[in-house]
């Protein structure tokens, strides 16, 4: 294995692997991805993987997410089948207060080109017949969908490797030295030098930042998810809270807990999640759960992506975000532009780490 690279990416999850792949499309100069475990062993492998846009707020963040969602069809053509399905997204609500919110949301987003329809009870039930008949309405947007996160990261990795990217896994970075014009990255399995260094550590970004004396304000948020046995296809849309996968299993969950890196599943949240499932889709009562799992999400202190150059350290870039699945095609594209051209085709100033200074 070489010891000198043009670019080293720390973190091989959906964000790091997307950057590696997109960068390798444009340049043949050496790229190394370092992962402390194995890609998919963390956040990227424990998600429902919605590609979700329509009720992200504020509108500029929804717009950013939309650009990424729109890249998915093209991405699937390039890296292969990732089971991306633009199902459309449905957020049911059960009280009139939420309808008011939904109407305001639809009005505001019309201006940025995201079409949201506020469905009546009858329209919601016509679209998704298995929804609870007690539903009051739903927001609907055709732009949302879902993807198989395992296929996605695997395809990013395979395509990147085919383009010459090297991966070193089970290889934790222990020290980073900033020298003039280069970085020395010390890892458990060896020491590497590079010109560009990209921190894509997801939930571990704060720890990674400490190695370069930069505060990356990312916290952890636990989500617990239930998986059912495969059922015949009966859900048409990605519902905010649950979705049916290609193989028929239903993934259920939308819980948030601050538990640090503790990946336990707990009976109270499993029961609450089961309650949500039967509340949204009563027919699920008879479906069997085969597994509960939990994932630790990366949550920036203000909720928004942290992207771009780190001021004061030349050639040091951070890409850390919540909603990494939705945003990965766009982040990979933009970070590639930033490295090769020094600027991005879509402004990312808003997402600069300098906002926390």
């Amino acid at each position, binding site marked *: 294995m070489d010891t000198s690279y043009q670019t080293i990416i720390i973190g091989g999850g959906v964000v790091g692997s997307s950057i590696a792949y997109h960068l390798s499309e444009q340049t043949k100069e050496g790229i190394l991805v370092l992962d402390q475990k*194995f890609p*998919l*062993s963390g956040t990227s*492998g424990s998600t429902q993987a919605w590609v979700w846009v329509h*009720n992200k*707020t*504020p*509108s500029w963040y929804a717009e950013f997410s939309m650009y990424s969602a729109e890249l998915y069809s093209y991405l699937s053509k390039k890296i292969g089948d990732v089971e991306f399905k633009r199902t459309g997204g449905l*957020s049911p*609500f059960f009280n009139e207060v*939420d309808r*008011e*919110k*939904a109407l*305001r*949301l639809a009005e*505001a*987003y019309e201006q940025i080109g995201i079409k949201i329809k506020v469905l009546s009870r009858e329209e919601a039930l016509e679209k998704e017949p298995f929804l609870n008949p007690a539903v009051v309405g739903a*927001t609907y947007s055709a732009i949302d969908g879902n993807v198989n996160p*395992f296929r996605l990261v*695997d395809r990013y990795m*395979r395509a990147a490797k085919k383009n010459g990217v090297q*991966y070193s*896994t*089970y290889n934790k970075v222990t020290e980073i030295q900033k020298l003039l014009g280069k970085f020395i990255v010390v890892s458990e399995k060896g020491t590497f030098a590079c010109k560009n260094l990209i921190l894509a550590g997801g939930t571990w970004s704060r720890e990674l930042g400490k190695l370069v004396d930069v505060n990356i304000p990312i916290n952890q948020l636990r989500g*617990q998810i*239930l998986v*059912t*046995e495969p059922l015949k296809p009966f859900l048409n849309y990605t519902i*905010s*809270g649950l979705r049916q996968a290609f193989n028929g299993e239903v993934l259920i*969950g*939308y*819980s*948030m*807990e601050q538990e640090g890196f503790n990946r336990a*599943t707990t*009976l*109270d*949240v*499993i*029961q*609450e*999640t*089961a*309650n*949500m*499932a*039967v*509340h949204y889709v009563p027919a*699920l*009562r*008879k*479906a*069997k*759960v*085969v*597994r*509960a*799992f939990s994932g630790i999400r990366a949550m920036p202190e203000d909720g928004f992506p942290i992207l771009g150059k780190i001021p004061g350290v030349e050639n040091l870039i951070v890409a850390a975000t919540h909603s990494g699945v939705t945003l990965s095609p766009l982040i990979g594209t933009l970070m590639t532009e930033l490295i090769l051209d020094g600027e991005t085709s879509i402004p990312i100033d808003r997402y600069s780490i300098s906002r926390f200074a």
Partner: protein
Amino acid sequence: MDKSTIICRCEEISYEEIEDVLTNGATTFDDLKRLTRCGMGPCQSKICHSLVADMIHEKTNTPYFQIPLPRMRMPLSPIKLETLATNSTSFSSVKSVMDEVELEDGKVR
């Protein structure tokens, strides 16, 4: 075992498919589970995990005692959602997406 031997009966994953990801850098059961779906079916790896351990041992020379077991999760054996549900409709850790849409002066932020 030959290349076409089915290792995971629930998901019908063959020896060859597991061999492929082991040569691509996967080293533990959970690594290859995510890449192949081996062990993700109704039995949750109760049937295939020892066969897979044999393969990991064979391909990576890792001694058996150093091969981690698959991570087991609740409910261990499939259980109906209605058995888990308490039928409450008040939620604390579980959110709704609409809860996250905040209005400021009657407008979306």
